[in-house]
């Protein structure tokens, strides 16, 4: 990285027109956002007198203006504008946009290089986890005793809502953002994404949404939980307008990312990379973003209607005005259930990609894995009303939704078979990424089995809305999802940063997080079964022990995550320099040198087999490597050393 900066200082890029465009960065974006927001506020509040200082209309208009101004300031509209004026970008402009020969500055502007976007996503995800995790610690501190009084009910509800939404957004982007953007294109042998400018657009829309979401904290919070159920949302403070705007901007971001990633995987795979030679991680990423494409517009429409309810008295969800709360719950869960697979699938499948590398065996049942992914994707859009068994909406459908929900356990079970089949008789190399695989096998079984109780209609009548549900979905989204994302980070860290991660700190953080996690949510299962509702600021003395245990476990997770943060930051800055292929893996991203050149491949590779040929043929020069390795890159993963990589 420092090497690149020296180069930048020695040879500044030639300025070939579009001078203003080249000066836009995160600072001008924030300035643009603040300026537009101030103008929007002034016009709506002072000139048009649409409402008081903090009224719904004024807040909504101000937040829309912030998002617009931010996107103008980052330069998102520059390309389309030039095109409208009849001038397209010249080659040099494209190279500038891709961040050619620029130092660290390219991470703070509208850069189209997919590797830069991937790193940007990684940092945004980490920031979101830091915020959401801090809020989680606050919640658990409040629940340490039955009546701790640490937070008042108003603050508590606000904190719970913001924690939920921050974590949902963080977990949605945690795999497809960093690894889907950075790794996936190299993995399929492409030079960049299909639509590099859309790639940067999706990232900066997400960045624009983050301050909107955090502004909710200063606008009365999100006192509805992350679900934002109407009509409670209709009477909530303007923090709820921040909620609706966050979702609208984030839905645009994820729809754009979804279209871009899907198109890339469909059309830009290297010559010879047939579907049966495509790495399984690509399937996971496409399944995830492909599900997001139909799911998030539902969420967006739900929030547009909610915003109209709040600002203009539209009464879509107000029974007295002819609306229905069930309209909201349906729209919400039509997004909400596919969304959990948007989160879990790529994380679990990243671990599935990791398993063959660290067992030195081919993936067990590649076709079974692909069919399972297809099955899960297909079924996941047909199960949404299992979140609504107790709402009273269409009770006659409960049996059908119980059926579809329980059917999902069949393809999900096959994913487990694929992983343990791959481990079977392997040479198990227990590195940090492989440890994440084992942790996921433990956590996801528990998350899955407790999900089966909740799919059973009578059991759900007893358990719905209790801490049991909270513990269940943390076991899936965190125990499987976040564990998978951390495993993926450990695995691809050497490729993304060019450094090896600090193994000792990684180990300490792994054990603290996993043990703390299980303690926290086992305690939560117990109090949920005993009858503690979700989202309560204080509770009966009956639940005191379980909650105390949960809080202690949560602190353990908190310390573990801080150590993980230290491991990432310190190793990124001065960890040991990583060889190009430290794990001896056979997918294409390990065949490019460190640091990865701007367009990844000098010569596009031709693929002649799938990347799982462990134990088949010559172990020193496996058949895949023979044709795949581009000219000039190290050919032999075993005999590689640091000096060789620093030359390239």
């Amino acid at each position: 990285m420092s090497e690149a900066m020296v180069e930048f200082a020695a040879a500044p890029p030639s300025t070939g027109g579009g001078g203003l465009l080249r000066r836009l960065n995160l600072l001008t974006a924030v300035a643009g956002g603040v300026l537009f927001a101030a103008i929007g506020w002034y016009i709506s509040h002072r000139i048009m007198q649409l409402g008081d200082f903090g009224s719904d209309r004024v807040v909504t208009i101000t937040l829309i203006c912030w998002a617009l101004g931010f996107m103008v300031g980052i330069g998102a509209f520059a390309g389309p504008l030039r095109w409208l004026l009849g001038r397209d970008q010249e080659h040099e402009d494209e190279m500038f946009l891709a961040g050619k020969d620029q130092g660290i500055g390219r991470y703070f502007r509208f850069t189209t290089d997919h590797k830069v976007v991937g790193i940007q996503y990684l940092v945004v995800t980490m920031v979101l986890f830091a915020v959401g995790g801090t809020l989680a610690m606050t919640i658990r501190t409040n629940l340490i005793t039955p009546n701790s009084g640490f937070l008042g009910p108003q603050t508590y509800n606000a904190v719970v809502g913001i924690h939920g939404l921050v974590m949902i957004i963080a977990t949605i982007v945690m795999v497809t953002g960093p690894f889907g953007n950075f790794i996936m294109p190299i993995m399929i042998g492409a030079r960049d994404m299909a639509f590099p400018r859309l790639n940067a657009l999706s990232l900066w829309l997400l960045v624009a949404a983050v301050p909107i979401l955090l502004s909710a904290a200063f606008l009365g919070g999100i006192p509805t939980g992350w679900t934002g159920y109407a009509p409670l949302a209709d009477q909530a403070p303007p923090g709820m307008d921040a909620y609706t705007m966050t979702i609208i901007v984030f839905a645009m971001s994820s729809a754009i990312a979804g279209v871009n990633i899907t198109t890339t995987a469909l059309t830009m795979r290297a010559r010879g990379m047939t579907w049966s030679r495509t790495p399984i991680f690509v399937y996971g990423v496409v399944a995830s973003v492909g599900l997001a494409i139909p799911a998030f517009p539902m969420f967006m429409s739900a929030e547009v209607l909610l915003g109209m309810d709040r600002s203009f008295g539209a009464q879509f969800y107000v029974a007295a005005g002819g609306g229905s709360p069930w309209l909201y719950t349906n729209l919400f869960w039509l997004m909400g259930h596919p969304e959990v697979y948007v989160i879990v699938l790529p994380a679990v499948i990243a671990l599935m990609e990791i398993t063959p590398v660290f067992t030195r065996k081919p993936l067990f049942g590649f076709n079974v894995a692909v069919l399972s992914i297809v099955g899960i994707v297909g079924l996941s859009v047909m199960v949404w009303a299992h979140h609504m068994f107790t709402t009273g909406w269409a009770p006659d459908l409960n049996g059908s939704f119980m059926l579809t929900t329980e059917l999902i356990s069949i393809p999900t079970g096959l994913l487990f078979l694929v992983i343990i089949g791959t481990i079977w008789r392997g040479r198990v190399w227990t590195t940090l990424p492989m440890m994440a695989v084992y942790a996921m096998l433990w956590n996801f079984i528990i998350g899955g089995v407790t999900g089966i109780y909740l799919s059973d209609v009578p059991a759900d009548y007893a358990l719905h809305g209790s801490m049991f549900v909270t513990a269940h979905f943390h076991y899936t989204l965190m125990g499987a999802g976040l564990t998978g994302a951390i495993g993926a980070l450990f695995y691809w860290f050497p490729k993304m940063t060019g450094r090896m991660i600090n193994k000792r700190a990684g180990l300490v953080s792994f054990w603290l997080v996993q043990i703390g996690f299980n303690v926290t949510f086992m305690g939560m299962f117990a109090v949920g079964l005993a009858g503690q509702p979700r989202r309560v600021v204080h509770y009966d003395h009956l639940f005191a022990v379980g909650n105390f245990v949960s809080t202690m476990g949560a602190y353990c997770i908190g310390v573990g995550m801080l150590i993980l943060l230290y491991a990432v930051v310190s190793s990124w800055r001065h960890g040991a320099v990583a060889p190009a292929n430290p794990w001896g893996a056979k997918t294409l991203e390990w065949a490019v040198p460190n640091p990865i050149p701007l367009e990844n491949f000098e010569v596009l590779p031709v693929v002649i087999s799938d990347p799982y040929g462990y134990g088949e043929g010559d172990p020193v020069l496996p058949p895949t490597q023979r044709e795949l390795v581009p000219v000039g890159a190290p050919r032999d993963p075993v005999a590689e050393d640091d000096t060789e990589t620093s030359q390239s």
Partner: protein
Amino acid sequence: MTIPAQVGGRVRSWMNRPEMRGVFWIWAAMTAVLVVFSLYVPARLMGPPASPTMHAVENTMTVFTVAASPVAAAVWSVALYSLLAWRHRGSGQPETDGPPIRGNTPVTALWLVLSSLLCVFLLIWGLAAMQSVTAAAAGRVPLQVNVVGQQWLWSFSYPGQGDIETDQLYLPIDQPVVFHVTSKDVVHSFWVVQMGIKIDANPGETTVTNVTPNKLGTFVVRCAELCGLLHADMEAAVHVVSADDFAAWARGRRSPPVESSPPK
């Protein structure tokens, strides 16, 4: 005759392989532990049931946990065995690769069939339980109780008993009760914890649920849907009393309250 013998022979030779025996014993031990856990822990954590519905739910929890035990143990025993027997002990990459097993059709088919059968069992069990919960109320004329949720309290009225209104629920034992639930403002959820029933209170709609209390005592109604500031305080007591006590209570509430007359 010969095919079963062949299959039997193959299974026997399979079971003689050391890894199969190791995994089998770990699996058997884990399954045993998990089954014992299933029989004692989940239902006990849920507490003594106060209705046949809750009894059925606790049975479901026990049976599902028992059914899940061998499956969970299958995954975990392979994982544990792989760490004990197949772990590469060295700092670097393993020198040799593992056996190139790309799949195993009989194992996959067996896994698919077993998990499908398990899924069918869960479904039939669930449908039967749903049926029995509704059938239980069909026998006798139920006592109707209208439930209204509002921020942040519950109120109950008894239309068959001269519209008594109360903020604590009184129910006669062994008498089917049907609750007609609605809300005055936002969505609440009417949850009689120890009886295992829950239904949302929606503004502008009436939802229905029913239960037959079968245990004397005082229980609790909690709100199970976040409903604003004092959601955590939205509780009410449920008193299950004998039929005679219930009749006496209802009489007392209908006539002008005797207790309010000044004492002599």
